[in-house]
């Protein structure tokens, strides 16, 4: 009896190939439950002796999501309360650069450190002032670091303290920071735009994050929280100062790419306040070379809706609307002026990219002025034009308060 069964050749090939595949195992596979998912990382500068001349050490804080706390326990309800610190754990280590402390942390953890979902990088103010080139290199070079990570600077604070604060509305505070950035009322700065601006001819900026202390008299009524209240202005890779209040608003008008904000004004000679909601803002900022001298022109076009009228002024009359327009124009112009002033004279930084514009439009002129660009920038005159349209004063009649 012939026991040799004829096996088709193709079948043999497939069998050999398939077994090859199985032998190697799963090359880069990591089960999802073997990952320590980093949701945010913070970098601070270690306080240093005045004496030592060695470069300062870096303290790195990682906010790692506790996956088991994130899911639901069957009924759809989350396992822990939102706003508690149970949802994440913090790991800290010091080292010479960005990745060394991370390596120390990695060796401590039972799970593989996974940076692919890092949503926020918080920079301590001291570290930002010291210079962030190390971080930039890590973000660009490390394939796991995503460029969509938001970068924020702790306002007069360390990254460590910011990362400790739970947020009452999000399970992970890192999510909260990312979602605040995405709201559209503040410029959204992720690592990509941050670095792009930094390596351009201009300067860069990011949002500043501030820890809000619960006020003592309110007791426990108010949560620990944080807010994005400032804009951190950089020159090259170093933090040079903060914008807040009117200068911040002015900066936003020049920046232009915001979606929703309210402006409260008073009309001269009329008591009370009036709040207008911005519907659209279109900003043209350009730098022209006229007679060999650069000149900055900022043209802001906005459309407003009247959202609240606390004044006795009847907005059904065009006169009052014109008054309101004027008040708005004045307010916006003042804010823009103060922003440009601060940037040009206090911080001497160019986060709005005027230098970049000259380089693109007048490359030959840029070559002649690039060495003393900051000198030129400081002296560049700024022409501000603000155009305000009131689209809608509300479909109600005269204000109720007379």
């Amino acid at each position, binding site marked *: 009896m012939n026991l040799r069964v004829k096996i088709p050749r193709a079948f043999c090939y497939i069998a050999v190939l398939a077994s090859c595949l199985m032998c190697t195992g799963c090359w880069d596979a990591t089960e999802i439950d073997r990952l320590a998912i980093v949701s945010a990382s913070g970098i601070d500068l270690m306080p240093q002796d005045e004496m030592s001349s060695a470069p300062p050490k870096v303290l790195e804080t990682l906010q790692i999501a506790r996956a088991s706390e*994130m899911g639901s326990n069957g009924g759809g309800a989350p396992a822990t309360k939102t706003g508690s610190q149970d949802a994440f754990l913090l790991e800290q280590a010091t080292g010479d650069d960005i990745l060394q402390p991370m390596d120390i942390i990695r060796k401590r953890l039972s799970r593989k450190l996974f940076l692919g979902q890092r949503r926020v990088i918080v920079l301590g103010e001291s570290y930002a002032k010291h210079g962030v080139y190390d971080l930039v290199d890590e973000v660009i070079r490390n394939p796991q670091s995503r460029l969509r990570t938001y970068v924020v600077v702790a306002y007069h604070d360390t990254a460590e303290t910011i990362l400790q604060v739970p947020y009452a509305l999000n399970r992970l505070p890192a999510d909260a920071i990312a979602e605040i950035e995405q709201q559209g009322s503040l410029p959204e700065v992720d690592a990509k735009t941050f670095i792009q601006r930094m390596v351009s001819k201009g300067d860069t900026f990011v949002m500043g994050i501030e820890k809000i202390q619960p006020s003592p008299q309110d007791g426990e009524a108010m949560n620990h929280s944080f807010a994005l209240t400032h804009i951190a202005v950089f020159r090259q890779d170093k933090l040079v100062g903060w914008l807040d209040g009117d200068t911040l608003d002015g900066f936003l008008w020049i920046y232009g790419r915001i979606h929703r904000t309210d402006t409260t004004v008073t009309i001269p000679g009329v008591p009370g306040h009036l709040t207008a909601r911005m519907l659209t803002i279109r900003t043209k900022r350009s730098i022209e070379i006229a007679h060999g001298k650069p000149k900055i022109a900022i043209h802001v076009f906005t459309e407003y809706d009247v959202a609240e009228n606390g004044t006795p002024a009847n907005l059904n009359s065009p006169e009052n609307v014109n008054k309101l327009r004027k008040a708005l124009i004045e307010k916006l112009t003042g804010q823009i002026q103060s922003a440009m002033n601060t940037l040009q004279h206090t911080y001497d930084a160019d986060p709005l990219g005027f230098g970049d514009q000259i380089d693109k439009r007048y490359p030959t002129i840029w070559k002649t002025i690039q060495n003393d660009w900051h000198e030129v920038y400081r002296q560049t005159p700024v022409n501000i034009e603000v155009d305000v349209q009131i689209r809608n004063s509300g479909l109600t009649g005269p204000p109720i308060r007379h």
Partner: protein
Amino acid sequence: MASRKRTTIKLSAKGAILRAPQPPSEAQSGDSSPMRLSERLDVNLTYLKSIFANASDIHFREFRIFDGRPAAIIYIQGLTDKTEIDDNLLRPLAQPNHAVDRVLELSHRLPLGVLVEEYVHIAGAKQVTTLQEAIQMVIEETNVLLLVEDEPVGLAVSAAKSPDRAVEEPNTEAVIRGPRQGFNENIETSLALLRTRLRSTAFCIESFDLGRYTKTTVALCYISDIASSNLVDEIRSRLKRINIDGIIDSGYIEELIEDSPHSPFPQIQNTERPDVVVSQLLEGKVAILANGSPFALILPINFWGLMQASEDYYERYMIANAIRALRFIFLFINLYLPSLYVAITTFHQEMLPTKALLSIAAAREVTPFPAVVEALIMEITFEALREAGVRLPKTVGSAISIVGALVIGQAAVQAGIVSAPMVIVVSITGIGSFVIPRYNLAITLRMLRFPMILLAGTLGLFGIVVTTLAVIIHLSSLRSAGIPYLSPVIPFHWRDMKDAIVRAPRWAMQQRPAESGKANPRRESNATRKSRRLPSRHRARS
């Protein structure tokens, strides 16, 4: 088995009967010299009785016709209509009527021709002269054979009544709107369902008897004006080359005539619906029906045709398009979802939104197996459930759904053996495979899912891409009756895009498919043109 033992009889040249053992081959009809029927009834009967010795269902009824001659009828008991035989064959033959009295006086003997004309009140009647023919008429055509003394010819009267099922709604292709008749096992009924829908001389039905023992009637149907003659010739020659013991179902034919039997993809469409067959015939395709199978085969087909349901054409075109889009979405979900889940959760975690990643991570915290093993376990369990559901007697069917829902749905998750997202993935995939209107394509995709999950588990997204490429390369080289399987997309025919992925409104489908309708490209659809439809309000007023 019985045929091997059967002995056959040969008449020698002198007419004497000799018993001769035959080799176990099909003997009676394959002989070179046909044996004529004898004039003597008893010789014929002895011969036939010996042939049918082991066939107890074949009955011999001997009687005398009105002129006194002995006669006999031979028929298969279950396959003939007894009342028909009684009323229209036996009774008239036993009682003389006036018309033939005169003839009777002249000769006392009626020639068979007169008998047929005057006495046999049945439509189908044919004279046979040889014994082989006679046997064939009894066994293969299930006719009643009438033999009369002194007549060297027999009369085969068709009084067939095969066990038949009523025309029912097809189970495998239900529609909400559309005809509810389905083919059944009786080919005559099936062909009748076609003929009622195609009353044209151009509608051709060619019959073959296939299968050495089963002698299954196989019909090749096409519309001669539309189907290209090359195609019909090719299919005919493929059918004629079939040499097999038996055809039990049209599936046998499918496997024997398809272009690439080793491909997992079906290259011949099967359908229970006469309306589907008719619409395909009108596109220049060819249908094959086999007796004993309610499934007609249609070829050539293309991949996109397998994603179409007959209802697409009965419902208004927007609805049809929406449903078709849904089907394509679920085609991809069906094929890719489990492997994507495996690849992304084990290799490319950065692709998930953070929140999704975290909730999957939370769900997978307690599960013991890697995602790929989990996926395979769940998919195989699901397939087993589905198969059990198909084969189970209907009365225990509900048990399976309880076990399925409770055991793999809930208990496995609560016990921490399987993660909840995996159950969701497998369920959606399961639904996806049932959305595909052709069951055999759904099975193919289900089969492809397993290597894809394996490769996704070992190579990640790269593995998925590799499998996809392999499938696409295979599909583009596949042909159905010579026509590229992916046409009209590969090779591209813009004209046919009207009915591949989308379904255009009827008046936009003026032309038949480019590949199968070459012979007669234009549909007679002037009546549905925009200008010929109901006058618009504007024109009606003027």
